[in-house]
Every structure is written in structure tokens, then in C-alpha cells.
């Protein structure tokens, strides 16, 4: 899932960005909080069995887009947060969840009539 790999890297970038670009305060707290969350969700979404979690990166992306205006980031932090946030909003939903090889996947737990029968 290239989209989720991109978002994993984006999250890791946010963890490093305050040190690389040299800013602190609210912008650093935002990046260092949203970064690990985004990287973890995107990493788990690389795998078919946990891909259903990918939607959780939509609120993270939304936060990254609004946080610079809400909290007043310096210019370079604003660009970084906005670019990664827009990427999350654009890519978080990408990837089909085909869990047929897992007996229909997690959704069968809520729809037991779709469980494959025993042979």
C-alpha cells in the first residue's frame, strides 16, 4: 500500500521536523504528538488485516491542517504541518480492504450470517 507507506514516512517526518527546521512551543508539541499517531495508524494500515484502521488518519490530517492557524505556527512549521495534513486527508482512505482470505475478516463478527460455514 504505497499511500500508507507515504503517510508512515509523513508521520516520522513530523517527529523529526521540530529539530530539523528548528522550532519549538505549540508547533513542536503538535508535530510530536500527531506524528507518532499518524505513523502508527498508517503503518498498521499497510497490512490487510489491520487496514480498517486507516480512516483514523482523517481526523489527524484535519488537525494538522487547522492547527497552524489555530495555534499560530512559524512559517516553516505551517508549511510542514499543512502539507502532511493535506497528504493525510488525500491518502488516508486509499486502499481496498479485501479480507476474504481471512474468512471474511472483522466485519463477519458483526454479521455472523456471513461467516463461512464449517466443512
Amino acid at each position, binding site marked *: 500500500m504505497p499511500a500508507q507507506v507515504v503517510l508512515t514516512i509523513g508521520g516520522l517526518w513530523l*517527529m523529526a521536523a521540530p529539530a530539523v527546521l528548528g522550532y519549538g512551543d505549540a508547533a*513542536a*508539541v503538535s508535530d*510530536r*504528538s500527531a506524528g*507518532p*499517531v499518524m505513523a*502508527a495508524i498508517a*503503518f*498498521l494500515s*499497510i*497490512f490487510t*488485516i*489491520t487496514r480498517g484502521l486507516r480512516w483514523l488518519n482523517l481526523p489527524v490530517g484535519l488537525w494538522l491542517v487547522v492547527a497552524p492557524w489555530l495555534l499560530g505556527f512559524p512559517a516553516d512549521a505551517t508549511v510542514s504541518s499543512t502539507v502532511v495534513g493535506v497528504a493525510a486527508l488525500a491518502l488516508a482512505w486509499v486502499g481496498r480492504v479485501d479480507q*476474504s*482470505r*481471512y*474468512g*471474511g*475478516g*472483522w466485519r*463477519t*463478527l458483526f454479521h*455472523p*450470517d456471513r*461467516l*463461512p*460455514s*464449517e*466443512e
Partner: protein
Amino acid sequence: MASETTASVPPGWQGNPSSWPQRLPIIGVALVGFAIATYLALYQYGVVDTVWEPFFGDGSENVLDSKLSRVLPVSDATLGAAGYLADAVTGLLFGVARWRTQPWIVIVFGFAVGPLGLTSILLVIAQPVLYDSFCTLCMTSAAISLAMIPAAVDEVLASLQHLRRVQRRGGSLWAAFWGRS
């Protein structure tokens, strides 16, 4: 052995999530995590004087000596080591049909793997935010516990599907949970 493995594939699955090729790598990775967490705990309790930190200066020491690492009666790395050990032990117990014959241990295994990963992520957030410090081995441990989740949860899904199937045909969920149906 081969026929036993075939018979252990859950209905509608392409492979058996309880087979040893599926479980042994998870157990191996858990033992690596256990070794790292034990080393960090030994530093926290003064058994070793310094901690290996190639990138972040005194970052590891700041993190490992922080107040947050001691909010519980035992240090956070000690809890991490216990968690990894629980992962390895609950990953090892019982045979290749355990998703069906011992669902309880698979579900305990899932509870050991999942929250450990989540806690690691929360600590990775807390360390730079609260202490402005990074800790290489702490982040390595977090990456390990996160990587174990997708490898482990397929077995949990197979057990939950099995319990759901028992319930649908009117069997006892309690008996099935303990493998007595």
C-alpha cells in the same frame, strides 16, 4: 503433521494463523523486545551505569530517569519487559489448532500484544513533548511492539470468528472460550 495443519485452517481462510511459521517470528521478535526492555530496566534500577544512546546525547537518560517512567510502583521499562514476556509465553503455549481448541489463550495473547503497542506509542509521544528528549532504544521498542500487532491479530480474528460460529449454532460460548466444546 501436514494433515493436522490442513485440518487446522479456519473455515474460509487461506492459511492457519496458529501454525508455527506464523507464530515463531512473533515469539522471536517479542524476545528481542524483552531483551531491550530488560536492559533499559536494569539502567533504571542502577544495575548498569550508562545506557546506549547513539543519536540523542543524554536523551535516553532524561527519558529513563523521568518522573513519568516511575508513576507506577515499578518502572515503565519493567512493565514493558513483563509485557514482552507475556507476549512470548502466550504466543508459545498450545498447538497449531489453538485458535479453535484454546480461544482463551489466543485472546489473552491479543490483549498482551495490543495494549503494549498502544502504550509504547503514548510513551513515544510523551518523551519529546514532556522532556524534550528522544530515546533510541525506547523508540526501537515501540516500533517492535507496533510491528507485532498485524502479525498477531489474525489469530485473534480466527478465534473470535470461531466463537461467533459456536454462538450462531446455539452452542455454549463459555465452553467454547475454554476449548470445552
